[in-house]
Each structure stands twice: as C-alpha cells, then as structure tokens.
C-alpha cells in the first residue's frame, strides 16, 4: 500500500511481536494476512441513473491495518500541522483534512498509481496517499527546500508527478476542467486509466464544473468527479448555497452515486465501481458524505456556523479511524494495545519528519527566478534596485 515505505526498517509484523507478552508469539502475522473478509458498509449506496454496487465489500486484515495506519498517520499529520501553524512556522492558508481521511485511503485502495488524482487545496492527505513523504509535506508547509514543490508552492500546491498526483489548486473549481483534461489525455493515449477529480460542496456550484462535465460526457472521457461533501463551503452550509444539495444527482444525464465518506470500505467499493464504469461508459459523479473537524482553514475557528455538539457528535459516531478500529478489534485482527502502538509509532514518525523538515534550509534567492519558464530564455529580471538583484529567468 501507499505508505509501506514509511515504516521503520523492521518489518511490521516484528513490531507487533516485539514488545508483547508471550501470547504474541502465537499470533499469526496479521500484517501480511490476505484472507478475505467481507464487511458491510455503514449504509447502502444511493444511486442516480445507474445500479448501485453491493453493500458487501471484500477486504482483508492487511488492508484494514493499512487503512488504520494510514488514516492515523494522516490524522496525526494534520494535527501537527495545526500546532505548527499556531507556532507561526506555517503561514498563509492551511486547510486541514482531519475527519475526511477515509476518502483518501479508500480511493487509493481501489486504484493504481497510474490513475490520476487531482484535487483542490485540502490536499495534504491525498498527497500522502499518493506516496508523498511526511518530510516533503512539512518542508513544503514551512516553505523549505525539501518540500515537494521546493518551498515555492505552499499548502495549496502539492504535486507528485511520478505517481500522477496533479495537485493542489487554490482557485475553487478550477481543478475540475484540468481533471477532465487529464482524462482526455488518458483517452487520447489509450491508457485504460481514469482520473479522479475531487472538489467540494462549495465548488459544486461552479459553472466550469458543468461545462467540463458536459464535454466529458460528450467525448466519453474516463473522468470521475468526486464531490467531497463536508456540508460547509467555508462558512456557508450546503443548504444555503445549493438549491439542490443532492450533488450526486447534479450531473443530470451523468450517473451518480452517494457514498458514506466516513467509511473507508464504502469509499473503496464506490471508487472501484466508478473506475469500471468510467472506462466503459464515460463520466460518473461520486458524492462522498464526509465531515471536517477543523474549520475551513486555520483562520476559521469552525464553530461560528456549526455547533460544537455537531462536531463532537460526528466524531463520536462516524469517525473513520474509530470505525476501522472497531472492525479490527471485532474481527480480532489486532489487540487494542497493538493499535495504540501503531498510533504511537505514527506520532513519532510525524515528530521526526517535523524535526527533519525544520532543519531543511529556506530556498536560495536564485530560486525566485527558477522554474518560471521551462528553459532559460535569457530573460532578465530585476529587483527594486536594478543593480542589486539581476537574474535570468529560467
């Protein structure tokens, strides 16, 4: 799975076996166990213009533990980013994804790295899901050289070309036409891959989305539009922004599926279904019913437009990590302590990455002028004092 290389050098099963009592040596190596388990999703899928996939999802212990670990890592990363922001090490905009982790991990479980993902500015966890490292995340957030965009992009501009993660976009909705363009390129090159273009309930009201959807449906593009509906477009609740908040139906002639976005297995099932559909029949819309615990961004407390009871209610009843934890425990795939150990491990990883990122230097001044163009044009750029900063734009 995506985060496998983030493990410490000792194998995962060894971690479980090491600190435990003798009972542990009798335990089967759960981390590599692929015996299929069938789990029912929390709620059935609701569909529009298509047949909903089955509620029963096939998974296995290895996958469930990966889900747990990956989501715990994402959760810890976002909370750490919160602290870093308050410590003024991260500046500008910082949009946190905690609460929505199931969408990222469920999607990755259903697709390959050859499929493309493009999203908006709440992109930290998707980047991790695509194979990005914690160091790249924290370094980019702090504007350091080791960042995935060399410190020049920031929170809203994470990209990973080699695993087909196309960002990371600040303008609401603008990534959807880009995503349909990716799907077009996939069709043009006959890749048999699909593109997932993620957007929020706020962006769902953008005209360019419907324009792009129309073109995708006309040209039969393998585009999957995923609405991460966390019910608030910054401070505006969905019912105040959309006459029809049934986002999965808004495609009209394009089929849609409504999914419980807090259930990683439901997300995985839906994405698998969507991929098959898109390769045969063109675009499809997935609406992930999810929730963000933080406000829209770090400058938004998140409590002026919704009650604290609502937030804690969702946290108690629908939290994605808790759901997977309960699944693992009920199927006896790991003990409470083992799961807690994973969380501790993950916390340490995050802390280590932050420490390493803090040591990465700020970009060189010459980086101001690099990567403006794809190759040097000999174009000169000047600072305020023409004699002082003089560079050739590359």
């Amino acid at each position: 799975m995506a985060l496998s290389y983030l493990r410490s050098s000792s194998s995962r099963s060894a971690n479980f076996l090491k600190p435990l009592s003798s009972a542990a040596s009798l335990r089967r190596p759960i981390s590599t166990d692929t015996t299929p388990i069938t789990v029912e999703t929390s709620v059935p899928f609701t569909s529009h213009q298509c047949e909903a996939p089955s509620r029963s999802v096939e998974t296995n212990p290895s996958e469930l533990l990966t889900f747990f670990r990956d989501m715990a890592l994402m959760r810890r990363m976002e909370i750490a980013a919160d602290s870093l922001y308050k410590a003024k090490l991260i500046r500008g905009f910082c949009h946190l994804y905690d609460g929505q982790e199931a969408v990222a991990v469920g999607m990755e479980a259903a697709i390959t790295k050859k499929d493309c993902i493009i999203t908006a500015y709440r992109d930290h966890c998707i980047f991790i899901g695509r194979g990005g490292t914690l160091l790249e995340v924290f370094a980019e957030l702090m504007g350091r050289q080791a960042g995935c965009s060399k410190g020049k992009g920031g929170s809203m501009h994470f990209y990973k070309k080699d695993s087909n993660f196309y960002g990371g976009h600040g303008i609401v909705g603008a990534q959807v036409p880009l995503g349909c363009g990716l799907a077009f390129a996939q069709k043009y090159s006959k890749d048999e891959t699909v593109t997932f273009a993620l957007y929020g309930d706020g962006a769902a009201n953008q005209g360019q989305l419907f324009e792009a959807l129309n073109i995708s449906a006309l040209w039969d593009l393998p585009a999957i539009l995923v609405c991460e509906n966390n019910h608030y477009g910054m401070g505006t609740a969905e019912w105040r922004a959309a006459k029809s908040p049934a986002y999965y139906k808004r495609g009209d002639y394009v089929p849609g599926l409504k999914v419980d976005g807090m259930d990683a297995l439901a997300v995985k099932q839906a994405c698998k279904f969507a991929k098959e559909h898109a390769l045969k029949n063109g675009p499809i819309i997935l609406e992930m019913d999810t929730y963000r615990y933080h406000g829209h961004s770090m400058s938004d407390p998140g409590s002026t437009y919704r009650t604290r009871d609502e937030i804690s209610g969702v946290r108690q009843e629908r939290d994605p990590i808790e759901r997977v934890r309960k699944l693992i425990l009920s199927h006896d795939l790991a003990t409470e302590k083992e799961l807690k150990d994973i969380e501790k491990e993950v916390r340490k990883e995050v802390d280590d990455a932050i420490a390493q990122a803090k040591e990465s230097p700020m970009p060189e001044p010459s980086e101001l002028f690099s990567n403006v163009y794809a190759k040097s044009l000999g174009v000169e750029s000047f600072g305020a004092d023409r004699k002082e900063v003089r560079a050739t734009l590359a």
Partner: protein
Amino acid sequence: MATSFHGVGAAVAALSSSPSNSFDSKKLLCSPRRSFPVRKGASFVVARSDGSVNFDLNPKARRAQQLIVNAVATKSDSSPASSSSKPGHELLLFEALREGLEEEMDRDPRVCVMGEDVGHYGGSYKVTRGLAEKFGDLRVLDTPIAENSFTGMGIGAAMTGLRPVVEGMNMGFLLLAFNQISNNCGMLHYTSGGQFTIPIVIRGPGGVGRQLGAEHSQRLESYFQSIPGIQMVACSTPYNAKGLMKAAIRSENPVILFEHVLLYNLKERIPDEDYICNLEEAEMVRPGEHVTILTYSRMRYHVMQAAKTLVNKGYDPEVIDIRSLKPFDLHTIGNSVKKTHRVLIVEECMRTGGIGASLTAAVTENFHDYLDAPIMCLSSQDVPTPYAGTLEEWTVVQPAQIVTAVEQLCK
C-alpha cells in the same frame, strides 16, 4: 502623445473618402481574395524576416494621403522585385497558419487542436480547415461554447505531456478563461517546483477588425502581459505566422499566439522547406537611421505605409516588428535605439496598460542614456471600439498620425 492625434484626427477625417469604409465583415470570411481593393499604382512593401525589404518608391503615394482603412494586402503580381531567389510557394496568412499546424501535427502525434468549430466546420477563419478530415475527431476537437473549461482541459492535458493548441474563436472570448490561463497555465510550472511543464499553445484572432463592435475588437495582449510564466507572440506576415506557430507548438512553455482578424488574407511567398521563427526575436522590417519605430501585428502595415511617406519627406525610419510581446527582444530593440536615439512605438492596444506602455517603460529603463528625445507611444484610444466605421477608424492609429509623430520626434 494623446494630443498629437486629436489634431491629426480631425484633419484625417476630412480626407477620408474611401468607399471601402462600408466593408462588411462577412466578406472577410467568405471571399478572401476580394476583400482588399487595391488602388492602381499603389506600391506595397513586402518584408522578409531575413531582413531584405522591397518597396516601391511611388511619387503618386504622396497624393494619396487618405485614411488607410485596409491592411495592406499584397497582390500576387504586385512588384517584380518581390520574389526572392528561393522558389517557395505563395499562400495567404491563414493558410500559412494551417500549414504550420498541419506540419506539426504530422510530426508529433501529441499535438491536438481544441476549439469552437475547428473540426467539422473547418474553423471560423479557416485556419483548421481540412484538419479534422485528415486527423480525426480525437485530434481536432469541436468543443461546446465553454472557454473556461476547455482551456482548463487543454492545460490539464498539457500537464500529462500532450501538446494541445487551443483556439479562441476571438481572443476576446478567452477573457472567460482568464483564471485558467493565469493561474494554471502560467503558474503551474513554478508552483509545482518544476514538475509539470505546460506545452500548450493558445491562439486566436484579436484586434480591431471591420466594424465588429466593442466586444469583438479586443486586444488581450494587454491583459495577459503580466502573467508570469507565459510567452506571447504576435504574427504579422504569412512567413512569421507559420514560423511562430511551429515554434510555439514545439516550445515547452505555454505560448499565446496573437493573430489579427484583418491580416488573415495577406499573401506572401514562403519557403518550401521546414523553418521556424524564434519566439523571442524581433523582426527588422526596414533598417534606417533616424528613428526607431517599434510595432507589431496590424500596425506594422500602417507603419510601413507611413514609412513610404516619411521616406519621401526625407526621413529614414527603422521599423522593427517586435513580434515577441513577452518577453521583449531588448537586444534588437536596444541596438536600434543605440543607433537612432529616437523611439516611436505604434501599437493597437489602448493607451492605458498596453504593450506600448510596458515597452516604453522597458526602453526607458534600459536605454535611457541613448535617447535624445522622450519615447513617443501611439496607441488606440482608451474607449470601447465603436461600431460606426468612421469612429472605428479614429480609434486606431492611422499612418498620417505616424508621420506627424515622426516629424515631431525628429524636430
């Protein structure tokens, strides 16, 4: 600057008598060769980018001080001196664009064309005629009228390595795609730390046409010029149209190619062999000693028309078609300024915030010590382009105004 042509404008209006004022824009599309009535005994300038220039010094031209309403079109038998030693073949500017596009599509299977009516219709200005039949619907794509999204899709496709050529039916329509062009096209290479290149070409006709109305007569080069990360070029002859089109497609950077509605029917003899024009280079149209006139696109022809008059009056203007609007070719421009010490900029953008304004600043900053007089910049009026023919003529710079400006500059 502005005052100089208020006075001239009135004088010019009095002289205006050409019947071709009532030119119908529809004719532009349907009957290419008939579009530009040629006056008897008129002489034309055929300028080549290799620097050789041919023009007829016709004393009768002094008489014809009238308003030049047409862009100058070269007839096939215009001047015997117009053929260079290369055989080549003759074609119109829109055919040159098509030839360039077709050659690049043959050469690289990743090149595709997207735009409104580019496919089955053949292109609203016939630039893409025949390409859909040859390359199929997946490479020449008819889009719905949705500039924002299909420009975005072109950029998304370019991120993966495809090389789309996005056509705006009229440059003005690309205002709807401004966000995509500015944020995604221009900036993605930078914000991704160099991971993605966007080898897209965005092209289309712009400029003041023949009574097309305010919304269809826009000069978008002034709006796009600040976007970091893009290149902008403007073509003006069939030779450089084909060359710039090919260079733009081959470039790894996003390039915006500005064509002009009134120049599509210019005819010229171009070489048979493969050639491209340097995207960042300016073209020396007419070398001279007294004053440097910087211009581009349609205004080049107004300038050359004025140049004939100026030569008769004893001036020796150096005319440079800057071609590269972003970045400016300060090397060629600088050498010229160092020689002549006087600069006149003639552009079609509006006075406020146009290419001329930026060029004035760039030349002043870089070559101030070489200037004997302040830079003069003749631009279009800061008004929406009116529909009425006479008013429309006064919106753009006319050759008589250019002549007056040079005389003032060289006093």
